[in-house]
């Protein structure tokens, strides 16, 4: 138990002293995760809307594939992207490997299925009556889709938050594509893996506590926002 209290006290100590090293790691994590979530959202939400509203041959197959991709292991994505952007890969000349950009590319691939499927689910969750109401009030297809999108907004925000939670906590992609370079691509999770390897469990757990706090804060924020929407 002493070990856990040590970790807890250390986490608080590091957090309140705004330890530079720690802040740098947290900032890298947040910047990279926010960027990949933003890019994945910009791509994924419209795609989700299209898949949800349009009927096309093979739609169910597409959804099955997307659901399968939800379970894609991060190391598989890491390996795949690594092969593409390594010095000897097709995109080698761009010198992307072991940069924040590389992590972002991998993470976008990781969470695009999350955002698309959650968006589809959020839209499908909206009662058919909203659809009919918009139509009977004279809305065309685009305007109707907009109404449904607006009604599904909390579900879609939940998708974005879930996606962020996924990237901020993943380690495979960050480690393989970022390389854990201190001050450049060292994220909370890769730092935790490193501190574990070094035998500095206290610091590893302290970082873990900070990671959990971030996730908790984020969910709290979402919860409050949702509560305000419902009042």
């Amino acid at each position, binding site marked *: 138990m002493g070990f856990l209290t*040590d970790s807890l006290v250390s986490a608080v100590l590091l957090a309140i002293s705004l330890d530079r090293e720690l802040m740098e790691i947290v900032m890298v994590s947040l910047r990279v995760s926010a960027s990949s979530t933003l890019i994945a959202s910009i791509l994924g939400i419209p795609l989700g809307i299209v898949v949800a509203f349009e009927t096309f041959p093979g739609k169910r197959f597409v959804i099955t594939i997307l659901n399968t991709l939800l379970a894609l292991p991060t190391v598989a994505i890491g390996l795949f992207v690594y092969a593409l952007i390594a010095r000897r890969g097709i995109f080698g000349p761009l010198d992307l490997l072991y940069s924040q950009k590389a992590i972002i590319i991998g993470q976008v691939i990781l969470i695009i299925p999350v955002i698309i499927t959650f968006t589809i689910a959020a839209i499908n969750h909206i009662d058919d009556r909203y659809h009919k109401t918009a139509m009977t009030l004279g809305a065309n297809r685009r305007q109707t889709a907009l109404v449904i999108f607006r009604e599904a907004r909390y579900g879609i925000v939940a998708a974005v938050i879930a996606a962020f939670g996924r990237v901020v906590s993943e380690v495979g992609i960050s480690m393989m594509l970022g390389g854990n*370079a201190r001050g450049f691509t060292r994220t909370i999770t890769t730092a935790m893996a490193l501190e574990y390897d070094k*035998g500095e469990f206290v610091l590893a757990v*302290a970082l873990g506590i900070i990671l959990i706090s971030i996730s908790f804060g984020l969910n709290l924020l979402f919860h409050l926002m949702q509560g305000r929407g419902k009042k």
Partner: protein
Amino acid sequence: MIRVKNLTIGLFLSMFVIGLMCTQTLGETLKMSTTTSTQASGLLDVLLPELEKDTGIRIKVIAKGTGAAIRDGIDGNVDVIFVHAKAREEKFVADGFGTKRYAVMHNDFVILGPASDPAGIKGMKDAATALARIAASGSMFISRGDDSGTHTKEQALWKSSGVKLKQTTQSIVKKGKKTQISFFQPEGASWYRSIGQGMGKTLTFADEKQAYTLADRGTYIKYKFGREVPVDLEVLSEGDELLSNPYGVIPINPKTHPHVKFAVARQFAEWLVSKRGQDLIGGYRLLGKQLFYPDAL
């Protein structure tokens, strides 16, 4: 109910005892923490079967970074540690976690870099000056940064290179007491990448970035000559006294951790420094190259 419970407990106990007896009859098994680079060198694959033939001792190898390996010793998770960070090993013994450090062997570190050698250090014997050159040229340098033996060595080299260093200190609490963890690295250097990973990963990182790095020769030989796609890095500086990398084996102190198999661990350590063990070490060849030099003869 009680009878059934007693019966179950009895059954478990007897199975446990039988299990213990089996391991006894098959010879002793030791748990040993070592570093990933030691395991990666392939030396253990030659040594351990011979050890079993000679003494019946079997070794369960747990490979980690030097820090974690020593930590395993501190926590009493293993019976013996086999690492290469002399100063820390001596502190480990001084702190009472180990009984004695047996100097087993050494190999050496090399400074690697791309064939183009932008810092112009090829052929330099003075490792510290070579590092200073790299710093001055602003060429990328990859540091393991994982608190490993290699990382410890690298920090020592930077200290003697005269490059201005920055100390990063983190305060954490261990066993209720505030302690500090410090690192040294060149100050304000955007060319310095501390990646906190193992030797192999560091080599591929340096290869990808065509950067300089410090590596142990064994891992380098494996990545240079033992792979289908060899790393595109050359040995640019070698032979400095400072680049020597001594290995030590330390049985865990039974006074600190009474459950360890001290007698067997000592037997293992003594076998390593015996003529038989030392000959095996000196005769080991990795891809035709000698890797380790016995220190005990």
